[in-house]
């Protein structure tokens, strides 16, 4: 049996996944006429970046090692606090990232967090 025949279903699956990923990504940016949108929809779109980024963060920082945690043992949540402060006070992009990753690495190196 040829390699392609052997993996036919997986290849079909990958092509299908490519289509369902690419179409939502490409469709609006290619075909949306931004100038002709009603004002309410334009306002709505202006709230999408903050909403989607916060939604992604919300599901990331409240889980540590795959478990929901609101306590100080959640290193992701604890590290977010000084990082957000740095981002707010300094507006520094790389500074914030360095703070966040440095905090996580140091917290583990010092043995405070697992």
């Amino acid at each position, binding site marked *: 049996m040829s390699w392609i025949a052997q993996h036919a*279903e997986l290849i079909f699956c*990958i092509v299908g996944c490519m289509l*369902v990923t690419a179409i939502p990504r490409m469709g609006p940016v290619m075909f949306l006429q931004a100038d002709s949108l009603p004002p309410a929809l334009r306002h709505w779109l202006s709230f999408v*970046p903050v909403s989607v980024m*916060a939604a992604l963060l919300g599901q990331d920082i409240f889980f540590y090692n795959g478990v929901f945690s609101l306590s100080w043992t959640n290193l992701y949540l604890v590290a977010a606090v000084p990082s*957000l402060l740095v981002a707010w006070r300094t507006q520094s*992009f790389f500074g*914030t990232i360095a703070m966040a990753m440095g905090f996580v690495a140091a917290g*583990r190196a010092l043995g405070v967090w697992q």
Partner: protein
Amino acid sequence: MSCPAATGKGAGAAASPFWDGVRRALPIVLGYVPVAFAFGVLAVKNHIPPSLAIAMSMLIFAGSGQFVLAGLWGAGAGALSVIVAVFVVNLRHLLMSAAIAPHLSSLPRWQRGLFGFEMTDETFGVHITAFQHGWKLATTTLFTCNVTAQLSWIAGTALGAFCGGLITDVKPLGLDYALTAMFLALVVPQCSSRLHLLTGIFAAVLSLGFKMAGMGQWNVVAATIVAATAGTALFLRQERREGRGQDGNAGGAAV
């Protein structure tokens, strides 16, 4: 407001649009390589040949989507149910694509298509933030950033798929926090008004709540839609109260 990475104008910034693009992709690369590595390892573990794992990173280029694919495939799910699951996970990109469309309207349609193909949470995040800080679209920077990000994703996948035993733990370096760190840096300048801040908090709480309520992969897209709608409703009410005109952009800080 200075946002050097996003505008490429920071101290010591490279002068060329090409290097601006590489610079903009840098934190993304830092996050992608270990995540893609983990994906490569997982794919092989789930009976996906390395060549097809790499093909996924070239053709799909979606972190959560590819993990869902590899996980479900390993669990023996049928192709159609995998495709449906991946569609749901990546549906949030429909909203991002619409939100960034006004900023890219000067590009030819095929370039907008190419941009969309490589648009991830992370590339969307850095570009939309740059636009909001008055970045003047430079095609070279835009595509250099996206291609650099995707190349690092493909390289990480290949490393994981072929030499999975190489690295067992990225935790000591804090690399598992790299992408979260980047979103922490990106979300703060998004909160440009009290209303945007409230909307963001609402979205984070909703996304978490939906996830805990067992909504599966719908949580991010559902939270985004509900929070953005609430934000818009409050904004329009506030605008009506203050008796401002319907000129469309008043107070709409982001677009």
